[in-house]
């Protein structure tokens, strides 16, 4: 059993506080991804769990033990680093077996564990090579192998894929997911790439400036973002956000058209309240080029300034309420730049945030 609990965890470097009292409960065998822009404190948090950084305040438990003052080797964790961090002077076999060797385990046990890890990660044929003779993807697999030989309770991944090229990254993403199914361990994974977070995580933790903004399953945070930051950070392209004011049962967008108030928010807003309307490109489509929408929708004209054909769909860039807005068109056809089209906005899939707090009005 290895649940990881963080209670009011704080990290300070001198007078500068970089992590502001984080609370997080990670279940046994759960795959949790910490995601956020650089400098948000996600790596620091991971390194505190690993024991590579001191904890300035609060408490971290792994399993049932408070680990605040335990050195990394007593925490029963292993870590995969961004730059692989393989020992360049050792062969792959020695790299994999290093932790067991210094724990003075018998040689036959080490050999068995190394062979098992090499089997899982298909590294058997590279065991006698040095890291310098391996490709990026192979090095990453060795780094993962080094983590799994010890059968730790918790795996920590610190942006393990960011040094790989796009194709390899996708491939390794799948391997990590498979690995999790095979070794059945708790995984805490740090990345700045929201696609990685969405595809890998059981639960995503979105961080900004040392705070947790939202915790939820990938679909949770995509479908109901807690605030505008999460709304723009998760999902590609980022959610469109337009300022406006509630007037009766409509939203009057600043310098833009009147749009009827999405019904699901009717009871949560007050007349005259300043709000931010959020919607994804998938929910704004030109009439006649979209699937017919059911339920409440708004209709307005918009000029398309630029289009990006992606094959199955085309991304449209228009201007609405003085801001650039992205829309989508299925059944693509060639478009003239500057062409004006009638658009439909699916109100049932819209989001509404308070203009001051930027929190969702759900």
């Amino acid at each position: 059993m290895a649940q990881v609990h963080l209670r009011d965890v704080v990290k300070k470097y001198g007078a500068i506080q970089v992590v502001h009292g984080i609370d997080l409960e990670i279940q046994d065998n759960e795959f949790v991804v910490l995601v956020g822009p650089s400098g948000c404190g996600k790596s620091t948090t991971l390194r505190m769990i690993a024991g590579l950084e001191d904890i300035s305040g609060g408490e971290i438990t792994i399993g049932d033990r408070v680990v605040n003052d335990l050195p990394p080797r007593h925490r029963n964790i292993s870590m995969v680093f961004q730059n692989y961090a393989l020992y360049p002077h050792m062969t792959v076999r020695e790299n994999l077996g290093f932790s067991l060797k210094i724990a003075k385990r018998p040689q036959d046990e080490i050999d068995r564990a190394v062979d098992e890890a090499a089997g899982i990660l298909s590294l058997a044929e590279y065991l006698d090579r040095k890291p310098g003779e391996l490709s990026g993807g192979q090095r990453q697999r060795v780094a993962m192998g080094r983590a799994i030989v010890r059968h730790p309770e918790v795996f920590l991944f610190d942006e393990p894929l960011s040094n790989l090229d796009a194709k390899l990254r996708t491939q390794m993403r799948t391997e990590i997911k498979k690995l999790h199914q095979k070794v059945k361990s708790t995984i805490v994974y740090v990345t700045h790439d929201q696609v990685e977070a969405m595809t890998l995580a059981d639960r995503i933790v979105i961080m900004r400036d040392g705070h947790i903004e939202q915790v939820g399953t990938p679909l949770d945070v995509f479908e109901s973002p807690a605030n505008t930051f999460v709304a723009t950070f998760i999902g590609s392209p980022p959610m469109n956000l337009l300022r406006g004011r509630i007037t009766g049962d409509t939203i009057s967008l600043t310098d833009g058209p009147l749009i009827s108030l999405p019904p699901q928010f009717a009871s949560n807003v007050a007349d005259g309240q300043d709000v931010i309307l959020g919607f994804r490109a998938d929910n704004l489509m030109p009439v006649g080029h979209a699937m017919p929408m059911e339920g409440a929708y708004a209709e307005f004209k918009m000029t398309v300034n630029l289009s990006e054909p992606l094959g199955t769909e085309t991304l449209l860039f228009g201007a609405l309420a003085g801001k650039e807005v992205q829309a989508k068109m299925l059944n693509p056809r060639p478009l003239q730049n500057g062409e004006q089209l009638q658009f439909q906005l699916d109100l049932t899939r819209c989001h509404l945030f308070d203009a001051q707090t930027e929190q969702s009005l759900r």
Partner: protein
Amino acid sequence: MHPALQGLLTIALGVGGCVAYFYLSNQFLDRVLFPPRGPNAGRNINRANMIRPWLFLGPALIALGLYLAYPVVETLRLSLTERVPVPGGQPGEYDYNFVGFANYAQMMDEPKFWEAMRNNFMWLLVVPALSTAFGLLAAQLTDRIRWGNAAKSMIFMPMAISFVGASVIWKLVYDARPIDQEQIGILNALWVGLGGEPQTWLTVPLWNNFFLMIVLVWIQTGFAMVILSAALRGIPEETVEAAIVDGANPFQIFFKIKVPQIKTTIMVVWTTITLVVLKVFDIVFAMTNGQWQTQVLANYMFDKLFRANDWGVGSASAMVIMLLVTPILVWNVWNARREMR
């Protein structure tokens, strides 16, 4: 002219002359000899580029040839000859008669030569090992403390002192006064303080060799520390963190992760100090002059060449030193090149 002005003028002329040579010879090559224009522009550019490296390397090659290669050949020749005054000639006129390996045979018969060989061998075992070990230790420790840079400067400072200067300092350390006087040498002060009789340390056979070696260790530790400190800082921090997570203790991290990663640098430092040791002369010359069984090869050579005026045996011992240095030098260069890759 004032000597300082003369010195400045020499520096200005020397540096200016070098710059002028490189600039003007390059201009001459490009403008006059093979100008990149006319019907053969392409061919001219190729030819100019073929000549340019030799143009720039030329002065160095000539200087090395004149002051290094030629003396080696000349020393070899002298080591195979004997110098006798021309019968009935002016004082200072000599004949050089080929004698084969007679000089070498004579040298081999001298116990002092074998004493020098034995001592040099001891120096070779002790000094590079201790200097590198202390340097590595100092590099690792000073990187971990706040006043590490100040400590580093102190340890490095002996590098700036000439060998003779260092010998004078250490001669004071080993100084001995009669028993009824106060000891000014710190070693005797300590020794007497502990209840011993004052010793003339530099005359105690066998041990005095080690007292001399300490001087060179004291000087070379700073060199080793600086190079190894830079190498230690070049080790990727993540490999150290990975080892921490893997459960290594500080000693294991140092010996199993850090040291192997800077192995080639350690070898370069080791062999570089070995070369210094093989040529060691000033320290022995200034402190014991090879007496009390502290002779080393370089001092033996000096004795033969300039005191006994025996050019044949002196040159022969110089050749022996060169033969011993060469393989280590080759290995050193090979290691250094491997490290640069």
